[in-house]
């Protein structure tokens, strides 16, 4: 749980990503431990965001496989035309 420097030589063009939100890491990152896993974040408050997200994610519905339909109204999550 501390800020760490992201040290790279000037010719290193690789890119690093925040483990919490996917944003780019620039020069430094916030490092924290989540159940034994070391995560790198672009903001300090990402540590608390990570914890909040874990509880929200427990309630998400399962992912359903999709077959593309040419009829969109019924897929939109909004009331469709009545037949």
């Amino acid at each position, binding site marked *: 749980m501390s800020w760490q420097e992201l040290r790279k030589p000037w010719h290193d063009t690789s890119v690093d990503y925040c483990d919490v939100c996917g944003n780019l890491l620039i020069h430094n990152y916030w490092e924290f431990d989540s159940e034994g896993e070391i995560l790198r974040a672009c903001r300090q408050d990402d540590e608390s965001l990570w914890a909040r997200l874990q509880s929200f994610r427990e309630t998400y519905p399962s992912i359903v496989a999709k077959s593309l339909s040419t009829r*969109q109204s019924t897929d939109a999550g909004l009331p469709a035309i009545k037949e």
Partner: protein
Amino acid sequence: MTTKMSSEVNKVTLTLIHRQLVNICDEMAVSMMRTAYSPIFSEGLDFSTLILDREGYLIANAGLNPSMLGASLYAATWIVREVGAGNFAEGDVYVHNDPYRGGSHMPEHMMVMPVFEAGELVAFIGNIAHMAEIGGMAPGSFAATATDVYQEGLRLPPVLLYRNGEPVQDIWRIILSNHRTPKDSWGDLHAMYGSLKIGKRRLLQMFADRGLDVVTQVFSDIQDYTERGLREKIRALPDGIYHGEEWFEDDGITATPYGVRLSLIVDGDEIIFDFTRSDPQADGPINAPYVVTMSASLNALLYMIGGDLPVNAGLNRPVRIVTKAGTICCVRLPGSCVGGQTEYQPRIMEMIMGKVLGPILPEMTTAASGNTSLNFLFGGLDPRTGDYYAHYHFEATGWGGRAHTDGNNATMPPHANCRNTPVEIFESRWPWIHEQYTLARQEVGHGEHRGGAGVVRVIEVAAETITVSALSDRASQAPWGAFGGGDGSLTRIEISPAGRTDFVSFQEHFRLISPTKFTNIRLHRGDRVRLSSPSGGGYGLPEKRDSELVAIDVKDGYITHDQATSIYRVILDEKGRPDDSLTIALRKESGR
């Protein structure tokens, strides 16, 4: 909104100075429009102009192109942090187009110029503009079959384009040597530079007139104002987790559809957009860098609840965009991503506005719009001049019906806000001849408020060869209707080879994997291309549409006399006027 100011700047001063800052951005935009070489600047207005604070945070913009919002909020901060605030000097200008450093996609170039007052760095002037040609595997630099970012054109990390007001010739030579149309790039980059100089001059004048302390205090206060306003509006939404899903038909490389899944969490005065369950990134260029997902999310939120909030970095504070690197929502180097900005972004906005927030804000939502830019790229040697030409063309579509009005006809997707290129400009600049450019009125989604019409454009090749590419979507998934409205229509990209009269799809004629994504097809003199953009979906049941409007729709060619009866349940007399008593009876009989 009641606002308690956190500083000594009162609300009137805050408003006046903020409006002046926006006016500076507007003047910068007019300058770019009038001095650019490429129609995508001068006609399309595919750019943004910005004022940023000394750390690169957005203070004001001209608001021309909302799709650049994420990059406007973020890319300059990357430049400032990468270069180091202490390393900027008077007369410097940095240029940057790297989607892996905060840019949206490589055609969009950002320039920033530091502004000093009494030797101290106090602000940046910036702009972002879509260059028409930046090299890469396809003329127009929109390669629908690119499988990595290196095929998409010349990628520039933040590099000095001007030092002490003088061009850095080595950088210029690299850029111009890698673009197919260096004369246009030369002119457009100078148009960008000129607008920066105007912005800087006006900002320095404002410091002199108003005082540096007051203006920089406004820089801070206006962000606080936006943050407070947005938190207030978020707090008015019911707490909960709202889910949505959107699908892209293919990525140009395989026929596999790709899904984006969003869980939107409203928690008090904060919102979290959680995209982490989306599909892994595609092989083709439909992926989005992080800032594009940010743009889509913030733009959708602003459309739905933003009202007249000033657009600045304060928007970011109560909102978090959460993605996972390596997914379609957050492409990982070296993934290709040029289509994320034009195809992914409007569809994600649409998903948020319709499927996710629509059920809780039905008055603010819309049926789906065409929401593809129908990018059609072409280039070659102009027989009239012998010069290489290239153009990035986007097509207008129909918008979805809304709670109180029909969808717009022939309008660019809501995220882009660009203008079309007039036929006269088109034909004078490039070797095409127009045969048809019309509204697709018969294809709108029916509804109480019907969808807007897309367009049909037929153009004939007037050179020995032209190389064309396309990047679009919605060849099989029409824009959806809302609350009982009907779906809109599909994207079609077709060809009629020279000597024939019928049109067939590019996919069928050239045996392509994708009907909407292809690269570097050579057409020949006399070949004709037909581009049909999607029309928008309808909002509400057609049977509830005002019968007078139905009669007008028949006269204007949106529906036939028979459809007025079969779909809208309106009986028209022999003069085309609605017969109210028969219509009421028919609608009653229909049970609605």
